[in-house]
């Protein structure tokens, strides 16, 4: 497996691991795990995943790496979804009823757009199409939470809006990656 890793990949990987470990320390220092349990668990799991995958990449075969990557990435996706629910539960009760209906309608329109986009994008396999649609839906939902956090007076630098907008951007990049890979391969 290590033959497939370039020095640039390794450098980015090490920076990512260092960043994730520092984030875990920051979460412990600020006792964020008491306020945002699922986001904290997501951060710890992501740090563990990065370290585990790096160790496996240099000690095991490509097959082992692939299966570990498959299991850990799906576990991280579940934790991301739970983080989405956690962020949503913090923000949505702040809206009064008419605004909540308007917000729900806007979200429905956005999700419909996502479904149409995933259906029409030229991908070879149905699995890729489902993955693209679900990742884009998660990104849209995070942006929705971030926008409503802003609407409620929370700037991007505030905790919840910052977490939601970053996860929204991250999943948008993942969608872009899926598009490029689906188009190339």
């Amino acid at each position, binding site marked *: 497996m290590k033959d497939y890793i370039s020095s640039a990949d390794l450098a*980015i990987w090490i920076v*990512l691991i260092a960043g*994730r470990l520092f984030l875990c320390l920051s979460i412990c220092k600020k006792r964020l795990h008491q306020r945002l349990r699922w986001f904290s668990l997501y951060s710890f799991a992501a740090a563990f995943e990065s370290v585990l995958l790096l160790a496996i990449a240099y000690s095991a075969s490509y097959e082992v790496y692939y299966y570990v990557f498959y299991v850990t990435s799906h576990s991280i996706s579940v934790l991301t979804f739970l983080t989405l629910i956690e962020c949503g539960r913090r923000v949505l009760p702040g809206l009064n009823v008419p605004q909540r209906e308007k917000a729900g309608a806007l979200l429905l329109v956005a999700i419909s757009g996502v479904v149409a986009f995933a259906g029409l994008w030229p991908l070879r396999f149905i699995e890729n199409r489902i993955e693209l649609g679900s990742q884009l839906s998660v990104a849209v939902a995070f942006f929705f939470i971030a926008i409503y956090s802003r609407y409620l007076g929370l700037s991007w630098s505030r905790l919840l809006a*910052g*977490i939601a*907008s*970053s996860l929204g*951007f991250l999943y948008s990049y993942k969608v*872009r990656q899926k598009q*490029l890979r689906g188009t190339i391969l």
Partner: protein
Amino acid sequence: MVLQVRQIIQIANVVAVAAWIVVVLSPWGTRELTEADLLKIEAAFARIEASLGTEGGKTV
């Protein structure tokens, strides 16, 4: 090209982690509770308790 795409998502992960570190550690949005703030809160609670006591007296 595939390798570059893989590196872009890793860089996006690094940027996201940096953003989370900033929002977790930043003092923006939090405020230290001063002695004056504490006195205001105590005064407000005292007024609430007094008004509740008055209402209670009326009902009894």
